[in-house]
Every structure is written in structure tokens, then in C-alpha cells.
């Protein structure tokens, strides 16, 4: 498995795009995570302090487990996962074979908007991090 090398310029473009599309829309935290569970980028930062290292590791593990579940039922992979909480929700999406993006937002932000903006961000990041 090839290592993931992140350059300053690619990361800057990605972070700017995340800020402009998601953070501005009210999403309080966005993480880019690689499939080994490392934090590639973290933007925003809500009122509560979130343990992003644990979040990243669990995200990667969760995705890995879900894609095994997908295989068991004959699906290719689930590219999207959504957990709705009482107040905060978690939205996970696979960007490419290396990267997963996590968005955390509360009920002031609509899921529809998040989906729309996530799709825009993915397009940009996909091109930046062509594996």
C-alpha cells in the first residue's frame, strides 16, 4: 500500500475549499482522514473540544468494517455513512481509496445543504489527491 504524501499547496487548497463550502455553511468540524486512521486535515472546531485523533481512528475503522459488511451482502462498498444524533450529526463520505471526509454539524444545519456542499468539496479534493 503506497504511503500518502500531502503537500503544502494541495492541503491549502483543500482546507480553503472546506472552509468556504462547509464551515461557512455552519458545519462545525470537518476532518480529512486517511484509511489508516490518520488526521490529514482538520477544520473548524466546535464549541466542545473533540478528540480528533480518536475520531479519525474510529472513522477509518468504521469505514473498513462497513465495507466488509457491504461485501457480505454483495454490495461493492458504502461510500456514505450518516449518524444522526440528538443534537450533533456525523456525516462520513469516502473521497477516494485513501481519503474519508467527516463533517460534524448540529440541527441548525440541514442535511440537504451538507450533502450538496460535501459533493462540491469532494470534487475539488479528488482532483488534488489523485492517488
Amino acid at each position: 500500500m503506497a504511503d500518502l504524501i500531502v503537500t503544502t499547496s494541495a492541503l491549502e487548497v483543500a482546507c480553503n475549499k472546506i472552509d468556504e463550502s462547509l464551515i461557512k455553511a455552519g458545519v462545525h468540524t470537518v476532518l480529512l482522514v486517511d484509511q489508516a486512521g490518520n488526521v490529514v486535515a482538520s477544520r473548524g472546531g466546535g464549541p466542545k473540544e473533540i478528540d480528533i485523533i480518536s475520531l479519525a481512528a474510529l472513522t477509518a475503522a468504521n469505514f473498513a468494517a462497513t465495507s466488509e459488511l457491504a461485501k457480505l451482502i454483495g454490495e461493492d462498498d458504502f461510500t456514505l455513512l450518516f449518524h444522526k444524533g440528538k443534537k450533533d450529526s456525523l456525516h462520513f463520505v469516502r473521497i477516494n481509496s485513501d481519503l474519508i471526509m467527516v463533517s460534524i454539524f448540529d440541527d441548525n444545519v440541514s442535511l440537504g445543504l451538507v450533502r450538496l456542499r460535501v459533493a462540491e468539496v469532494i470534487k475539488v479534493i479528488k482532483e488534488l489527491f489523485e492517488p
Partner: protein
Amino acid sequence: MALIDLSKREIHCKIVYYGPGRCGKTTNLLYIYNAMSEKTKGKMITIETKGERTLFFDLLPLTLGKVGGFDIRIQLYTVPGQALYEATRKLVLKGADGLVFVADSLRVRQVKNRESLEELRRSLREYGASLGEVPMVLQYNKRDLVSSPIPTIGVEELDRDLNNGLVFPRFEAAATKGVGVFETLKEISKRTVRHVTQKNMLVGR
């Protein structure tokens, strides 16, 4: 698979403690966790069943100083040992940059040690890697029991079983007391970071 962040000048590596159930993988991480300063360790996560057996993995993030101008961040993982959980072990193994194979010195676990190493070889192959390609060290754990009445396996025999030709560095350990724990960690970290930096030609970048 390591993450190399040229912007923050950080290298993130994943090291997995592998081995049969009850050999002492979680004990290694707990000892490291308790011995490290707050500054160099992150939060330890364990996903376990009610009976304190590892269900998915344990994770301990560490910061280990600088190499060639890069900050080194290491995530230590353990796999669940129960035979049933092979699929879970494979998930945790995915993307590992370094491996510690923990063997149990108890005589009754001799076959389990061999089976676990065989499974590791097989899983790596499915990921397109092989033993010897990924940096690995062995740890012969529970050496404190050698002086007890409980039957144990000698080091030479463990070598013959698991490390024929002594291709991997191996350490004797008693993880509950911390003996050999940091020696093992130091050696695998050194080898893993060296492997990652050389592979990506980061030295002097």
C-alpha cells in the same frame, strides 16, 4: 500506509501488535500508556467486550520526537486475538507500517503462536505484502513465568518455531512488569520510520 505531511513536516505511522489471544498485546499498550508523559501520548481507546477481551482494537497514539526534521507520530494498534475474529484482525492490519508479533511463552500456547503467525502471513499476502517486507520485530512475552512451575517454551524453541534463521529481531518480555516493552517499541519504531523515510526518499528533503 504512512501519512507524510510536508506542510506540518509530520510523519504518521501505524504499528500493529499482532499475536494469539491472551499473549499480552493489550498489556503492552497499557504499560506504555501508563509510562509515557501526558505530552507524548494521546488518549488510549479500547474497544472491548464485557469480559475485557479486545473486540475490535486498542489504539494508543504517541509522539516520538524528530527524525530528519519530521515530527514522528505513531499509532499503536492491537488486534483481537480470538480465533473467530479473523476478519476484524485483517481490518486492523490494513495499512500497517510496522508489526510487533507477540508470542506467548506458555507451552500450552505453542500451536496458537504458530497459527497466528501463519494467519498474519496469509493476511499480509492478501493485502499484497509479505512477511519481511513490512518491518517486524518479535516479542517473546511472559518470560516471568519461566521460573514458575507452569510449563513454558525456551527461547531457542520459540526461535525455531517463529523466527527460523533469526530474520527478525526478538525481545524477551514480561509485559505485566514492563520488562522488554520499551525495547520492543523502540526497535519497531526505529525500523518503521527508517523504512518509511527511505521508501519515500524523505531523508534530507
